[in-house]
């Protein structure tokens, strides 16, 4: 307003330029991602310390995770990251149709991820490989194997909640893309959702080897 330039509808009153608004959003998003890293940080610390205390138990217990399903989920999530990135790229090129398609694929991948997780979880529930005091499985050698499953469920559980939240965010930007809210000039919400989604992927990239491969 101060500049007397025309100001588009998406420019909030307290910013003077679109540029400033976009960069603020991005900065805010990155700081938010930082808090997410530290939120998961507590769980990584949990993992590291108990693994260092009971390496053998962790090793024995991790064999009960299904590497194939874990790997499948890794592939699914990585693919969804690619399509997410491409969705943004298409928007930058003003190709709204493609953006919509890529977002839909991303959403589908997220859903596949959760379905696979569902099967993994229900199999474990069935065997009594439950966290904490509900643990009734007897096949793991070593002290306190229930702790491994506590780690497994808290880490993948919190991650799963993030996937779910990501799906909500993606659906929302998808809806807004369909409603033609975005253009090559303004697509900040998609970009933010993308950043979030890549972080969710990034965390999984660590969870997969830590839990499934090396216990």
């Amino acid at each position, binding site marked *: 307003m*101060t500049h007397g330039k025309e100001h588009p509808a998406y420019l*909030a*009153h*307290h*910013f*003077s330029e679109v540029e*400033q608004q976009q*960069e*603020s959003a991005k*900065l*805010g998003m990155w*700081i*938010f991602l*930082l*808090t*997410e890293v*530290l*939120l*998961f*940080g*507590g*769980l990584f*610390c*949990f993992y590291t*310390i*108990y693994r260092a205390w009971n390496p053998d138990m962790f090793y024995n217990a991790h064999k009960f995770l299904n590497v194939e399903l874990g790997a499948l989920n890794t592939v699914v999530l990585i693919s969804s990251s690619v399509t997410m990135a491409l969705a943004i790229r298409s928007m930058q090129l003003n190709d709204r149709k493609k953006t919509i398609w890529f977002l839909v694929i991303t959403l589908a991948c997220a859903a596949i991820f959760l379905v696979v997780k569902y099967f993994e979880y229900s199999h474990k529930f069935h065997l009594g490989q439950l*966290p*904490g*005091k*509900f643990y009734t499985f007897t096949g793991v050698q070593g*002290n*306190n194997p*229930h*702790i491994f499953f*506590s780690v497994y469920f*808290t880490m993948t559980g919190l991650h799963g909640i993030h996937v779910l939240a990501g799906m909500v965010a993606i659906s929302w930007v998808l809806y807004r893309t369909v409603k033609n809210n975005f253009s090559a000039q303004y697509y900040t919400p998609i970009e933010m959702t993308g950043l979030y989604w890549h972080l969710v992927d990034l965390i999984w990239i660590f969870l997969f080897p830590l839990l499934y491969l090396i216990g």
Partner: protein
Amino acid sequence: MSENIALARNYLNTPRGLKSWLLTLDHKRIGVLYLIAIMASFFLGGVFALLIRWELLNPGRDIMGPDTYNQVFTLHGAIMIFLFIIPSIPAALGNFVLPQMLGAKDVAFPRLNLASWYIYLFGALFAVYSMFSSAVDTGWTFYTPYSTETTTSVISMTMGAFILGFSSIFTGLNFIVTIHKLRAPGMTWRQLPLFVWALYATAIIQVLATPVLGITLLLLVLERVFGIGIFDPAMGGDPVLYQHFFWFYSHPAVYIMILPGMGIISELIAVFAHRKIFGYNAIAFSSLAIAFISFLVWGHHMFVSGQSPLAAMIFSFLTFLVGIPSGIKVFNWLATLYKGSISFATPMLYALSFLFLFTIGGLTGIFLGALATDVHLHDTYFVVAHFHYVMMGGTVMAFLGGIHYWWPKIWGRMYSEFWAKIAAVLVFIGFNVTFFTQFILGTKGMPRRYYNYLDQYQPLHAFSSIGSWILGLGFVVMLVYLLHSIYRGRPAGSNPWGALTLEWTNSSPPPPENFDEAPVLTHGPYDYDKVLVEEGSPARA
């Protein structure tokens, strides 16, 4: 609102109506909403404090049984920490002045700002709920395994604290982005008022440390519900690990409490000594240094917890390093008084009280940071006295100073200087009577969180309780004249203190959008050496 103030269009009267307040996106209104919520929390926490002191007047039962006492000190601690002191300066005063100091129209994310207030209320609701269901009795630290086995409402209180954490994170995030992106054209980092620097350092701690509190409390809840076995020894867990997790947040949190206070003190001393601040760079930089080091000292709360001697050594060493930037600040403030023109208006009285009390509080931190002496002093009243000196004597004094300093800006009216001075003196005296005795109690071995105590401690406890009444009286006086001034105070004018930061270029109360045009900087925030001291100085007002 009456007379001339009502005529001017300002953020208080435009637009009107309760709904416009509850849905406001204006940082000033959100600041005021926070202020109300925070003052309410402080008085609630204060009432619990008075109950504690009443019960401790004599050994044995005075007014409540041990269960109730344990709940009362837990609620006192939890309310004071999570509901009052952490949000106090940043969310209330910071919200109100930060954008104005930067010459901005608002914070970067106004909606997030309002959301954080509602999240605060929501968290407070949980905390209050846990007060009325079987109140928590774990102490504000929620140590396991006690917190996993007590039958009281630990879950609702920890969920409350968890939610309040998000409110704090969002405030911090908002401030960082605002400071980075919304400074007035031409305002460099070196021209930021020191309060802004302090808020910046605080915000960094808020976003880095609070998530860990979040996950800790979540794990605690999971421990209670599922027995996941991370913290509960019966389930194969390690209670000392809980302490690491808790203090990784809660030590940095003490600097979330003090840094904004230090920022206010920098403003007050410069304004009321009417003098260019001494060592601007040193003060700004030491805030960042404190913020960084504060992450690496948490283990000093655990010197006798059974942690390894190696860890104790490292934590003790780093603890001392925090003392140095704090000392640098204190000495720079002192030096700012040199060759100034010192006015003793109420805010300055609080600033000087801060210097006096924080120095005591900080220096007693050194006794606690030293390994051998902490073994004796840990979990005694010495610690209680230490942290009240830094929190009440430090942060709360700064907060009160800030309230009195910005009060005319917030409401457009002056409070009674006479009554304000009386209250300030009562608070100062009452505070020292209450808490200095506790240093002696502590060194003599009186443990904290004790409902009952040996007769030998009685005289000092009684003395301390008497102090708390003086303190309470001071606050009642303060409450009365402050509320009175909102309606009856004389109009304040835009810049009653002759201060140079940007918020004072606005009218009082400021217009809804702060600035029509982005302000043009004509001088730095502390160029008092270029401005004549005004004659009708506020000291005599």
